[in-house]
């Protein structure tokens, strides 16, 4: 054995004056950071094992626990920060790439927070959402060049559309990376709310078929769980090219997470690693994408819109334009702050661009080309609250995808350990004793509550702007002003500076 240089990240503090030795914390920490010393009849803890997920803190009936940053300091060094140094110790010990979960935690600018919204004063009245209808209905799907009306009747129906009662959907999270109870919670919430959840690349568990009309089924490079019944089960099909947290990288579901149910749903052997290749090996170019889009349409009788999801990378606007022309009905763009169940740390923290800039660039580009109205645009990658949504739509999105926020609603505490499969909140895990901690009935309620709350806030703010239908916000960048941004950034975002 050699000396390990790893030191704890967190310190578990227990108030012994209040602790009643009930051992709830012991039973709840899957990382085994709490233990029971039967001889001493005393609770003890091992700081090094704690990942700061707050499960024990929240469950402790006497509020005896708190978790702190481990007080150990290195000599101050602005270049060699603690996290940089610890990463080196870890890699020197393991020789492996650093893994992590959820979205990047680096202090990159969050442009949402540098955009301010408008409100009506004097020259036009604000609208009271309690008195007047406030309409958030949104349609996603391809729009023809022209609507043909003959004798007051629609001569040709629109191509298939997704009809959303509010412009918020749950974005892709695969069964495997998340538990079945998460999927059940979100599916139920989507049904209650009149919106959609997304299977991710994990296939569709048999218990979820009944939510088909609120389901977007994903086809990713691994093609896990893809069969004809699956494709036809959902309301739309999403081809996943990339993910914001790890552009250019495939997926890896470790064998431990592949239990009976996951194996059945994904159609792979139990305990085998599920590896999604980085590219789709049948898409090496844009014309290949067209072919896949139309193959999927053919397979589903042209009854379902096809979404193509890409990660926000440097030339995202050109790519999006290509995708629109390739025949996609909806383009989904995932910003680099988006979450993931597992990603190499260095990729997550350095690859891709923020969704705000990507969205602004794509929307402007599609407009310049006169094709923006033909496709729908959905964005995700860290939508944290209702104003992020309003700003996204004002920049030009039709709707947003939320995932991290939805998981937070279900209990996630952003400990970023999803890849360990030991999620104490029953979210990013397949261990049955952990999965059952998330009661899907409660999960559905909480996810529904969150979106309902956001819906109220969106309506409130729209009313303040004097707008009573979401389509009047879409692309309405005059409702935005930038603060603390360079000319160049304002330019890309297509907004004026505050005060202008």
């Amino acid at each position, binding site marked *: 054995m050699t000396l390990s240089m790893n030191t704890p990240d967190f310190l578990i503090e227990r108030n012994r004056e*209040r602790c*009643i030795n*009930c051992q*709830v914390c012991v*039973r709840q920490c899957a990382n085994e950071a709490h233990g029971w010393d039967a001889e001493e009849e005393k609770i003890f803890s091992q700081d090094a094992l704690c990942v700061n997920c707050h499960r024990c803190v929240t469950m402790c*009936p*006497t509020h005896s626990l708190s978790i702190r940053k481990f007080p150990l300091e290195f000599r101050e060094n602005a270049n060699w920060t603690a996290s940089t140094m610890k990463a080196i110790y870890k890699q020197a010990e393991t020789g492996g790439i650093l893994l992590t979960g959820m979205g990047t935690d680096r202090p990159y600018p969050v442009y949402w927070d540098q955009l301010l919204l408008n409100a009506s004063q004097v020259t036009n009245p604000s609208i009271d959402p309690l008195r007047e209808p406030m309409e958030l209905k949104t349609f996603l799907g391809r729009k023809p060049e022209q609507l043909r009306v003959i004798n007051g009747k629609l001569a040709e129906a629109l191509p298939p559309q997704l009809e959303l009662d509010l412009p918020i959907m749950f974005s892709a999270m695969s069964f495997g990376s998340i538990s079945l109870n998460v999927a059940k919670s979100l599916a139920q919430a989507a049904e209650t709310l009149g919106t959609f959840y997304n299977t991710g690349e994990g296939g569709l568990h048999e218990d979820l078929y009944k939510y088909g009309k609120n389901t977007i089924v994903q086809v990713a490079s691994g093609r896990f769980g893809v069969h004809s019944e699956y494709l036809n089960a959902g309301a739309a099909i999403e081809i996943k090219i990339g993910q914001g947290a790890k552009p250019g990288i495939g997926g890896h579901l470790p064998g431990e997470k592949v239990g009976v149910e996951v194996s059945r749903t994904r159609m792979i052997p139990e305990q085998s690693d599920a590896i999604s290749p980085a590219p789709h090996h049948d898409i090496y170019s844009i014309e290949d994408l067209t072919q896949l889009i139309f193959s999927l349409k053919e397979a589903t009788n042209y009854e379902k819109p096809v979404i193509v999801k890409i990660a926000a990378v440097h030339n995202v606007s050109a790519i999006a334009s290509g995708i629109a022309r390739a025949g996609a009905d909806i383009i989904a763009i995932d910003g680099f702050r988006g979450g993931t169940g597992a990603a190499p740390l260095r990729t997550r923290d350095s690859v891709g661009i923020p969704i705000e800039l990507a969205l602004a660039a794509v929307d402007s580009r599609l407009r310049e080309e006169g094709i923006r109205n033909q496709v729908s645009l959905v964005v995700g990658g860290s939508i944290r609250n209702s104003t992020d949504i309003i700003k996204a739509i004002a920049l030009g999105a039709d709707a947003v995808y939320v995932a991290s926020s939805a998981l937070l609603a279900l209990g996630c505490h952003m400990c970023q350990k999803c890849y360990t499969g030991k999620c104490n909140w029953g979210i990013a895990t397949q261990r049955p004793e952990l999965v*059952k901690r998330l*009661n899907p009935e*409660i999960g559905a309620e909480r996810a529904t509550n969150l979106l309902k709350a956001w819906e109220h806030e969106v309506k409130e703010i729209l009313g303040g702007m004097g707008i009573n239908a979401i389509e009047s916000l879409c692309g309405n960048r005059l409702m935005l002003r930038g603060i603390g941004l360079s000319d160049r950034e304002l330019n890309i975002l297509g907004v004026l500076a505050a005060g202008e």
Partner: protein
Amino acid sequence: MKRVYAREEVCMGCKLCEVYCATAHSEYPLDLVKAFLKQKMKPLPRILVEYNLSISFALQCRHCDEAPCTKACITGAMQKDSVTGIVSNDERRCVGCWTCILVCPFGAIGRDNQGHKVASKCDLCSNVADQTDTESFSNVPVCVQNCPNRALQFMDSVVEGEE
């Protein structure tokens, strides 16, 4: 009558139900810390969580229609209330002979050896309500109120033929 039903599929074995039950039946029904740290005798829960890896559920007295424990009790301490249907043990009359424990088909009766030997069992919190003057205890038992995952439900019988 209303009974407590366990939902195994969402019981996570945390045993908070036990903690709250024990407290509610202690000398300090409203104070967890005092109940466990100040009271000389260890507060005992009348609900028991069966726990084995991913299988867990909480079990307590079923308040049977034809309760064998009431029939077997040698002193008449164990009674079924004809109005509420609650089976409870009058601890003043209980002599700690454990006959009830012998006949309970569910193993829902525990032993309290700490002082005067008595059979300790669920009373659906009916005594707690009397003791604390707290309205809320009588409506919904504390275990149900405090289960963080809705793994306990207080509802009318789901068993056919049961009252």
